[in-house]
């Protein structure tokens, strides 16, 4: 019975990592489609989202099944609860990839009015964060996860500066407004991917340490809070 449980838990863990791999790839392809103005590639990303949705449903069912039938405790329980959250986060990231791909599809009809520099850079950061948060989850590496969480600020900053820059373009040339709005949406989506990757990183820390670090990124918070009781 117990062995059966571990087998299922391991299989859930693998499914989750597999889904992470798929989502990572979606983000990469969506940004590629955007930069290369490749509507076909963008369409592929949009079509592929169905697979990710199915993966999410399967992971969800498996995790709830394990929770309900096995009443896990301690680290197994933590892993299961986190798996549920990571599963939802990954699905959301998949949706953002679709949003970016849809923008790419629409933007492919416009003539590029400025070289792609900031968006690919943001995408690189967001994808790196996602990748490393999954690495941290796989390796139960809380140091790596913490590093991911800290990089989120960089992404927020970039998003703001892109929006400022695009606003000046729009003010100068109203013909660029619709394209600029698309790019803003891409930037916003990438910023959200970073947020969700941060969530995954936080879950990775929770799994590794058994400590909730949500809403506070001080690494030694536990030690400080202890005397206050």
């Amino acid at each position, binding site marked *: 019975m117990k062995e059966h449980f571990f087998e299922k838990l*391991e299989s859930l*863990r693998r499914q989750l990592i*597999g889904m992470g*791999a*798929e989502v*990572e*790839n979606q983000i990469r392809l969506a940004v590629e489609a955007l930069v290369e103005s490749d509507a076909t590639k963008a369409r592929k990303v949009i079509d592929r989202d169905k697979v990710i949705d199915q993966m999410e449903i399967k992971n969800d069912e498996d995790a709830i099944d394990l929770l309900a039938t096995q009443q896990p405790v301690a680290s197994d329980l933590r892993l299961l609860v986190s798996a549920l959250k990571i599963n939802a986060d990954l699905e959301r990231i998949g949706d953002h990839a679709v949003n970016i791909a849809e923008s790419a599809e629409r933007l492919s009809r416009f003539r590029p009015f400025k070289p792609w520099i900031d968006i690919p850079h943001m995408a690189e950061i967001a994808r*790196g964060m996602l990748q490393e948060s999954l690495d941290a989850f*796989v*390796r139960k590496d809380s140091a790596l996860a913490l590093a991911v969480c800290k990089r989120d600020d960089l992404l927020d900053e970039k998003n703001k500066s892109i929006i400022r820059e695009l606003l000046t373009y729009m003010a100068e040339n109203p013909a660029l407004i619709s394209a600029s709005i698309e790019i803003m949406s891409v930037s916003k989506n990438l910023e959200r991917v970073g947020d969700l990757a941060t969530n995954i990183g936080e879950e990775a820390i929770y799994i590794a340490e058994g400590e909730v670090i949500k809403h506070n990124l001080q690494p030694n918070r536990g030690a400080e809070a202890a005397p206050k009781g």
Partner: protein
Amino acid sequence: MSRILRRSLVPVLLGVVLGGVFAFALSRVLDSVVKGHSRRELVEKLERLSPEFEEDLRTLAHPVERIRQAARQAGARVTLIAADGTVLGDSEVSPERLEQVENHASRPEVLAARRELVGFGARTSATVLEPFLYVARRVGPEAAPYGYLRLAISQNQLDLIEAPFRGTLYQVSLAAGLLVGLLVFAIRQRHANDLERVRAGVAEATAGRHPATPAGGSEETQEVFNALARFARLVAKEREGREKARLLARTVFEQVPVGLLVVDRTLALLDANPAALALLRAPAGAPRHALVDLVRDPETLRLFTAGIRGETSSDETAVLRLGGEISPEQVLEVNVRAVPHGAAAGEPAAVGVVRNVTERERTETMRRRFVSDVSHELRTPIAAIRAAVETLAGESDLPPDIARLMSILERQSSEMEALVSDLTDLSQIESGAVKLAIEPIALRPLLLSVVRDLAPAAETRNVTVAVEAVENLEIVGDTRRLSQVFRNLVDNAVKFSPAGQRVDILAEGGMPIGPGRASPVIVHVVDRGIGIPRPEQDRIFQRFYRVDPSRAKAVPGTGLGLAIVKHLLILHGGTIRVDSESGKGSRFTVTLPAAVPRDVALERTKETS
């Protein structure tokens, strides 16, 4: 210890039971010995006493006092019985009660004594109610006996005689029984020891060690051990061989500079060699339960999934690019081989081979960049030379010698321009810089325009070009690039055709084969020229390959044309094949995806917008 207890239980029980049987048998023997002895004693006493009472019996007297005296002497009950069975006296019965005693004529010992002088009997006395042993003797002549004298002793008295013997008898019996039990136990123990030695020997032998022959074992044990020693040698040899093979395999696995990943059918990671861990940058101590712990690239994972089902070929690869923020960027090539029989979970089902192709990729990039740079740099000077040569050649009053040299210059510079243009094209296609403007194209007009472009060259060589194509055949692709493809192919066909021959262009296919699908379009370019020898046929699509150097001089060309054709067709999702026979001509067959039937195509655009 408990084993010894268990083993001794049966012998002890056996000893007790045997002791009981012995005791029973011996007590029966003792009983009969004691009884026989008592009888003989009583008979002797009767011999002595009978003359004394002969007179009394004849006169039927009642010698009470003498009977008592005789009884005391004999230590037994004495009864005097007349010939008719009347009891004349009894040592245990008072004279007053004699009349109540019943007639003894029918007593078995009396009846026997009448016949045989002495008679025996054993029963409970009716007179004194005790088990008695009786001996009677006839007194007087056999024909007319005077009477009978009878002695009787109580059975209880006999038992008292036996009692001391009986105690000893029981002890001896029990001792004998236990002795037998002990003997059985000892034999059993000995056998058990033998078996134990053999068991230990077998254990040693199966471990491949020489089993030590035990001292004091039986001959059979000795033989068993000899056989075991032979078995041990076989096992040791076999084990050594297997260990060597295992060590060799392990060494190769660990030392080979190619990464190896062994997975079962659930994609659990069974083994990964150090090269694989290094190539995939797995940190030390990171978990390695599953393939996804090491590789998360979906393409690679798909390749493994296909590999487990045995659906991969050895040249199917996935390319893994590892980012280079901290460590240098690395390009890995993975291919997966199925392991036969890896059906169960936990058994190897597929092996992934990971190679580092960073260097190869880098050289390839460098080559492309070099070719692209060089060809780009050459274009401008060559264009200038061409312009100058053409201007000079246009002069009408050139001396004949100069005019001849000018024509050489003109021809060679034009060829050089073609070469550079081809090189630029090829390097752009290979580096992926060429973007196709995909649109539906009517095939027949495209082919006709190609033929029109090449008409002057065909006329010069006196070669006719015929196009035979279905009217409404449509393909999808880039018009300019596909024109380039067919121009190259038709140009080749014209160049290698002898004068007066015909080149045929045939187009077919594109039939609807289901909703939204059509069979591929196939275009044949057929010449009746010198043909291509079979061994060369695969290589003509490589860059700079010319079939025959001597022929290469006769027919101008860069050797890049077919390479460009092949790459452009790959970009279009098409293929090219050649069938040829030396001296008879060649047939180049191009396959291209057909355009989706119009109505379906419209629906799809609606769906996506």
